[in-house]
């Protein structure tokens, strides 16, 4: 499975593939184009029905929702008594979705920027610096791409709860000799309490996002022309200057692709937030709030639909405005686990 159009997550290649080539030569027969249109139309409608139903329902009064299906609105679009925004108002205030929204942003922004920064430095080093272990370390990053993050949850949870405690009892002889007491067990550790903190979640997202970020950025930076680096070096620029003034500006497409990918991933994440941030009201994110609402009031459709739409609105805006970058990031990240 080597080679091939996407096997190499090459950003430039996918970019080149984007411009639509328009209709294929053979299908000029208007009737078959019509057939294609109808089939495509049907699939699109099937795909949109669930989301459209949710959106319409979230804008109807509770009474209307419970007495008739959302599709009945098409028969009475101008009956204004069924439309309302109170569902959104209620779920935002008493439902706590307003603070959940803020919390989600607090989690998502640093969780996006921190791995990018770290990965950008690493990717530059992997592409343009010579050092021992460069190849091995990068293979190691590639191997980590698909590790399921479930593997990391329990150890990190324990680490966050008590900090790493190393048993260094082999030093007990020395400790005994120095202190004059009988020392049987010596441990060293840093006390941590990161469960339920934003910091803990940021660091976790950073760790889980890094392999893909490094992989992606290194592929991009490594493909920049080396003459560029050479001439900058001749002009007396050091690595730091080349990195900040040359490589970073040139890598904006790759950085943006990963940023959008990671931002949406973190914004939509439920698992990491559930495990490391938890369900208390002051820190919970949108997905947690939505899941809680689903558990407590599973039949309160006026709140559930409004809440679900609130959780979708920012991702959808990001998606529609930056779709090109998102698609590129996704294509390049096709191997991520």
């Amino acid at each position, binding site marked *: 499975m080597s080679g091939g159009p996407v096997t190499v997550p090459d950003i430039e290649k996918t970019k080149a593939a984007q411009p639509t080539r328009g209709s294929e030569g053979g299908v000029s027969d208007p009737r078959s184009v019509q057939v294609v249109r109808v089939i495509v139309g049907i699939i699109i409608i099937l*795909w949109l029905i669930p989301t459209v139903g949710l959106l319409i329902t979230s804008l109807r009064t509770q009474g209307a929702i419970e007495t008739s299906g959302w599709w009945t609105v098409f028969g009475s679009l101008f009956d204004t008594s069924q439309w309302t925004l109170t569902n959104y108002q209620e779920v935002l205030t008493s439902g706590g979705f307003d603070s959940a929204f803020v919390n989600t942003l607090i989690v998502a*922004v640093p969780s996006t920027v921190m791995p990018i920064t770290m990965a950008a*430095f690493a990717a530059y080093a992997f592409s343009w610096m010579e050092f021992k272990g460069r190849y091995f370390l990068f293979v190691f990053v590639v191997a980590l791409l698909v590790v399921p993050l479930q*593997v990391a949850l329990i150890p990190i949870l324990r680490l966050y709860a008590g900090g790493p405690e190393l048993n260094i009892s082999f030093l007990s002889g020395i400790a005994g000799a120095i202190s004059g007491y009988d020392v049987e067990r010596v441990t060293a550790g840093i006390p941590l309490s990161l469960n339920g903190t934003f910091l803990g979640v940021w660091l976790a997202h950073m760790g889980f996002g890094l392999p893909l970020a490094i992989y992606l950025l290194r592929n991009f930076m490594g493909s920049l022309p080396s003459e560029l680096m050479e001439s900058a070096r001749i002009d007396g620029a050091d690595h730091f200057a080349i990195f900040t003034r040359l490589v970073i500006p040139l890598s904006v497409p790759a950085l943006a692709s990963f940023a959008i990918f990671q931002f949406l991933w973190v914004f*939509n994440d*439920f698992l990491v937030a559930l495990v490391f941030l938890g369900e208390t009201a002051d820190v919970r994110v949108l997905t947690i709030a939505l899941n809680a609402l689903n558990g407590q009031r599973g039949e309160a459709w006026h709140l559930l639909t409004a809440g*679900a739409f609130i959780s979708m609105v920012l991702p959808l805006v990001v998606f529609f405005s930056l779709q090109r970058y*998102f698609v590129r990031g996704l294509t390049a990240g096709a191997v991520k686990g």
Partner: protein
Amino acid sequence: MADVEVQKPEAGPTGGAAYPKERRGFGSSVLVVVLSLVAALAVPVLTYVLLNGTFNAMSGRVSAVLVGVVAIIIGVVGVFAMYTLVDLGIKRLPDNIGRTVQPYAWAGPAVVVLGIYLVYPAINTVQLSFADATGEGFVGWDNYRYVFSDPAMLRSLRNTLFWIFVVPAAAVSIGLGFAVLADKLRRTESIAKSMIFLPMAISFVGAGIVWRFVYSFRVEGSGEQIGILNAIKVGLGGAPVDWLAVVPWNNLLLMVIMIWLQTGFAMVILSGAIKGVPEDMLEAARLDGATEIQIFWRIIVPTIMSSIVVVFTTMIIGVLKVFDIVWVMTGGQDGTEVIAERMIRNMFTFRNFGRGAAVAVFMFLAVIPVMYINVRRFREEEATR
């Protein structure tokens, strides 16, 4: 790394200017190793101290929103500032030492973080899988015996296997079919593709709510059906069904959600691949009188096979880790358990770390072939670079 030869200072693929080789004494080699280690650890440690200090200083004194804003600023600027600081420090070192240390200051922090967040946990999870619920006492193979004998676990293994067979195949087929059809449209192609792709932007939890509404059910006689699926069934003269409680078909209904979410992914990647099929190849086939269906099966599919394989592997991994959908829709009730859901259930609800770890190890083993393939592919690419 005793007696290191000084590296060529800045060697890209074409190599930098060759510096004269110097040999370093033992003492300075040790110094370089120590400095490299310090440089690699500096950014993670400094960043952590800075962020933690800020949080502690602010907690309880200022409003939550302000904490958030400050936290975002520090989180965004902090890491970069630390790298700048460390790099300034390296510039103060003697030139030849600084050159050797610098790469480790740049690549090292990421490797350290990966070590803490992925490598150490992976090893520790294997250890914990032989431990009891609290993760303290040793229980031998008991947890693995649980994985392969507990009825719910066995159901989850069976269901995950079905997910792996059904979801990637369905999503790839629909996505490929749609990509081929949309390719024949002129102006509307990109809009059409956006519509299919749209669910990719939605969280699994959000998608769960969307589909719970589609499947929603009311006992016959207690009012009109507001779920569209039951409304259609009743409209056709049937009785309403509590879809998510119909064993074993409820599993299929959950898979539909994943297919709905993932088809866009398959479609986008395969669509890109289809556009890469050489036009003259298609023209030649058409001149020879091949039908569009023949062209699809004999030319397009074989040409984009490697992309199809990549999409398949990516999806299999995604499906293996599916958990949110089941958690939100059924909570694993009515025979809908999947393996990732069992892992979280054991760890989070039952607080049984040993069993949770054993399930996680099982998941880890399942992705090792893909890991191997990725590494091999990377090495092949590097060899031809």
